[in-house]
């Protein structure tokens, strides 16, 4: 399966010191009320994408994440479950996945299909598969947003993501505008629904001449590993190599099964 990347945007909290909410208000003149950090992060990434590309109102919008709206979940857990208060209406609405997609869609001016989805493993790659299947039918373009928010204490996120206590987690939001059409594309990304065993992936990597980058979940392979942890790191890795106009073979792993993304620069 192959998709073409027409534009992209990236943000990592360790690389840029930005007050996202302030930026939304000041730079993008957006109303941030009744939203929370996860929604702000998603909208911020979408605004950056909008600066880079033409958005069609019928573009399909897919949003994925590793853990979801952690800040509203943590806040409501405190005042609902511990302090025995009732949930506030806007917190209730913000807990629903499509609320984030709604605000992102509204900020981009898209009004077509919108999906908020999570896969336990390979959530970014599985979202690419969904998009490929969908736009094969609809013949539209799609926008994929991958949002991972760090909340404090970040131990909550680490316990849920299944990573060591001393691993550093960061916030990140990354977007790609995707198409089946290669015209004016910056890169093409190839992927598959199939998972590989360790032996199979070693054979693939041995035969490969492209730069290889592993997710931090790949413990049994000996290549360069992506430097920080967040569940949708594949999205950010892809974007950084598009920016460099370089090809990349990205390997992700979960429970001893592997999936790969092949990025080919068209710049």
């Amino acid at each position, binding site marked *: 399966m192959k998709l073409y990347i027409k534009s992209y945007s990236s943000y990592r909290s360790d690389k840029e010191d930005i007050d996202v909410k302030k930026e939304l208000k000041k730079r993008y003149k957006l109303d941030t009320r009744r939203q929370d950090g996860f929604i702000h992060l998603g909208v911020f990434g979408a605004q950056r994408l909008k600066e880079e590309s033409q958005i069609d109102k019928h573009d399909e*919008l897919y949003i994925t994440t*590793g*853990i*979801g709206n952690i800040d509203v*979940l*943590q806040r*409501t*857990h*405190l005042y609902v*479950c*511990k302090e025995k*208060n*009732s*949930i*506030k*209406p806007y917190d*209730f*609405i913000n*807990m*629903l*996945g*499509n*609320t984030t*997609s*709604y*605000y992102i*869609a509204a900020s981009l001016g898209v*009004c*077509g*299909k919108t*999906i*908020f*989805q*999570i*896969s*336990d*493993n390979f*959530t970014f790659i*599985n979202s690419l*598969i*969904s998009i*490929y*299947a*969908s736009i*094969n*039918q609809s013949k539209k373009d799609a926008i994929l947003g991958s949002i991972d928010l760090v909340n404090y*204490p970040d*131990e*909550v996120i*680490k*316990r*849920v*993501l*299944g*990573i*060591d*206590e001393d691993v550093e987690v960061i916030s990140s939001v990354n977007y790609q505008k995707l198409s089946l059409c290669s015209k004016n594309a910056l890169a093409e990304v190839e992927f598959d*629904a199939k*998972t590989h065993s360790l032996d199979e992936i070693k054979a693939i990597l041995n035969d490969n001449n492209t730069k290889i980058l592993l997710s931090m979940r790949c413990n049994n392979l000996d290549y360069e590993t992506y430097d920080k942890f967040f569940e949708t790191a594949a999205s950010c890795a892809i974007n950084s190599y598009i920016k460099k106009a370089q090809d990349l073979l990205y390997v992700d792993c*979960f429970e001893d099964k592997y999936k790969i993304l092949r990025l080919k620069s068209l710049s």
Partner: protein
Amino acid sequence: MTKVYISDYEVLSSQGDLSQTIDAIKNKNIKISKKIITTDIQTIDAPYFLFKDEIKENKDEIYGAIRDIALKIISKLDVDERKSTALIIGTAIVDLNIAHAIESCVYEDERTEYSSKKYSIDSYAKAIANEFGLNDFTMSINTACTSSANAMLEGANFINGGIFEKVLVIGVEIYSAMMSSGFSAMNLLSLESQKPFDNNRDGLILGEGLAAVLLTKQYAPWSLMGGFCNCNSINITSVSEDGGEYVEVMRNALKNANISVKDITALKTHGTSTIASDLSEINAMKVVFESGVVFSALKPYIGHTIGACGTLELAIFLSSIDNGFIPSTLSCSNPMLKKYTPLSTHKECNNGVFMLNYFGFGGNNTSVIVKKEQV
């Protein structure tokens, strides 16, 4: 384009399994319970469509319930079929793994030793896929009331694209104190009964539901002809009074299914019985079905099952047709519009083309079109 068929479906509703639910609907003998729901302003003893046997709001019991419904379908698949079956869950339930992690490390008096294992809301799907040898591909979709309806359309895309041979779609909604309190805080709940498209309607009644639907490219009498989903509304909680957003999604569903409005035998509405939503929906129906349409709402039988309503209402509707009738709409005695009145008695019907609508918070709207061949 590969045709997508609906080859199997199972439910667990407040009325029981599929045959128990159809019997309850046929005989209009509906069981309903009550739940205390608390908000800052009030505590209400609200009607609630609960399962006969309680499923507690914890990970193990929820997994057990999803597993049981999935197994009813999976048990009929051989090893090779299972390997080529993807699993998608549509649900709006709260991620209890995060709640557990919060409890384990945020509150000093409840702190536990550090341990971590990867979890997400999709972990139920992953566990089922692992246990029964399904394909590695799993996904969970949360788009509020359209969750499992959207999951079915995603599943259909996978089969159309030749990516998977089969897709098992499961809708899940289990009672949650937090979720029901949220609905109450928004003044959406009725304390009496649901009255879809009735001038005296005053809100919805929540319900628990589980429903599994198997999509395949192998021929079956029922096919999923197409559908459409949009995210288009004037604000996060409501749509425009004229229902323009619903008109768009219905017309696009018809276009994608390659049929015209006159081909529709009957319409399963979303029909929540809320003041605003029913008004928008009936106004939209007037525009799309200018000459009128046979229509009904299922929520008075099973409640509003939020994320599960996609697969649950589809399975119940299909099974009703299989049993020779379109269910009537309960409790609509003072209809909003004379020309657009829901069925007041069950209508004989064995086949046809049907539109099923689902409209949710955050402007997420979905319309699905299915067909049963004349046998």
